[in-house]
């Protein structure tokens, strides 16, 4: 039972700062400030767009990874996981170097750098592993025999996919959406490098902190925490 001391220590280390923050949010009317509202709009809409793209590409990708064997499969899986392993500011540098480094796509630069679509690109980049893994794990948990039976009963491969497999992984799709959305809107390191403007909430929090100090950034942080907690509650 002495072990409980360690558990309680870790718990308090995380719990106390968060609960203190939520109980002393500062002047919440700051959340109505035009710049703050715009930042929330930017963050959430970029999150939605990036998550939708991740979903559209993630479903077929997850299905293939769960159901097919092919050359270099584990290499491809490793690459798709890689954004989780790369430091955040490095991700910004990687994306920027690539866009400016390859002549034929240089023109994309103006749509990405300091642009809404730059935020989407970063969110997508960091969110993909969460989406793909959730969906792949979902398909892996669906017994293949169920799909086989559906086919012997007259449903084509594509029909079986939509009638049987996809409905069975509903929960994995939801958690993929939440995880990749939450990962996206959390990002600040890569965003500072690629798209300082239009400001996302984490960037604004950083800016307010450096320009006006802790109290100026607290209410916005509380707003962001509440969104995260909501997503997190849905996930569980």
């Amino acid at each position: 039972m002495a072990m409980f001391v360690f558990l309680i220590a870790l718990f308090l280390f995380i719990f106390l700062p968060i609960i203190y923050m939520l109980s002393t949010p500062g002047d919440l009317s700051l959340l109505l400030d035009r710049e703050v509202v715009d930042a929330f709009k930017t963050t959430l809409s970029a999150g939605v767009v990036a998550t939708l793209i991740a979903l559209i590409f993630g479903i077929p990708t997850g299905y293939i990874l769960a159901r097919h064997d092919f050359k270099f499969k584990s290499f491809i899986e490793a690459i798709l996981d890689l954004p989780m392993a790369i430091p955040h500011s490095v991700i910004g540098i990687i994306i920027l170097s690539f866009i400016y480094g390859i002549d034929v796509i240089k023109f994309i630069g103006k749509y990405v750098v300091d642009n809404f679509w730059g935020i989407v690109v970063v969110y997508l980049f960091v969110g993909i592993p969460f989406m793909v893994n959730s969906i792949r794990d979902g398909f892996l948990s669906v017994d293949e025999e169920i799909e086989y039976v559906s086919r012997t009963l007259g449903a084509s491969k594509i029909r079986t996919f939509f009638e049987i497999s996809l409905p069975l992984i509903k929960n994995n799709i939801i958690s993929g959406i939440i995880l990749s959305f939450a990962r996206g809107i959390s990002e600040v390191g890569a965003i500072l490098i690629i798209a300082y403007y239009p400001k996302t909430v984490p960037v604004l929090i950083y800016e307010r902190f450096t320009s006006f100090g802790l109290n100026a950034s607290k209410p916005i942080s509380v707003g962001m925490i509440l969104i995260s907690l909501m997503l997190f509650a849905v996930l569980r």
Partner: protein
Amino acid sequence: MLKVNNLSKIWKDFKLKNVSFEIDKEYCVILGPSGAGKSVLIKCIAGILKPDSGKIILNGEDITNLPPEKRNIGYVPQNYALFPNKNVYKNIAYGLIIKKANRLEIERKVKEIAEFLDITHLLNREVKSLSGGEQQRVALARALILDPSILLLDEPTSAVDIKIKESIISELKKIKHIPVLHVTHDLAEARTLGEKIGIFINGELIAFGDKDVLKKPKNKKAAEFLGFNIVNGKAIAPEDVIIEKGDEGEVVNIIDYGKYKKVFVKYNGCIVKAFTEKELNIGDFVGIKFKKEVNLSN
């Protein structure tokens, strides 16, 4: 009528080697130990696996390269694989819905098949709440509702206990109107259900024919799998061993199955299994007589 011609397939650790057989409108049981590749055979016929070579002909049509949805084959996998997001009714009706049958016809047919298999009371249940035996019947109903050209059963009783197994066997006996291909490792199932019987060991169909196949194993491997005693190159079924008074063998083990005892007798340097209703103890000496012997080819 199903005709399988020189079918070969390597899949994971399993293989089929040149499997050929033919069945008419009859109940065919293919018997083999676990891991012999029986499921691979079933999956090739269902169209789930593509054979490496060989032909599958169903009612005169070469279906070797048809996708499963175009074969009209009823398939009941080992774990039943009911659709977990649909209730029993929707599971059974699935094939008809896919075929866009009209609602009244679907209702009528589901009712009919549910009565036939005695599961009318389950129709509104969720599949998660079903017992193993109930799942088995629902899976059977789902496959039979489309009037398939053949029914494929993969170890239908391997996941249930002995009582349910006996009741499933009695349901399966009712299926008379279409050919059935049933693979199993269970001897009692083969004896009870099989009109045709195949013995399948290590990817090869080493015997195929009527019930006699079970009584006349061709080689040692088959004889051992069928539970025969092997004495001096001859195979003797345990039920053909008669335990008498005498001192030729020593009883080394006895398992009491109630109606009878299975005894293991050390005889001529090997262990002979036999059944008896006599009261015996370990260490007793007995006489042994063989009612029937089968010569083994190798």
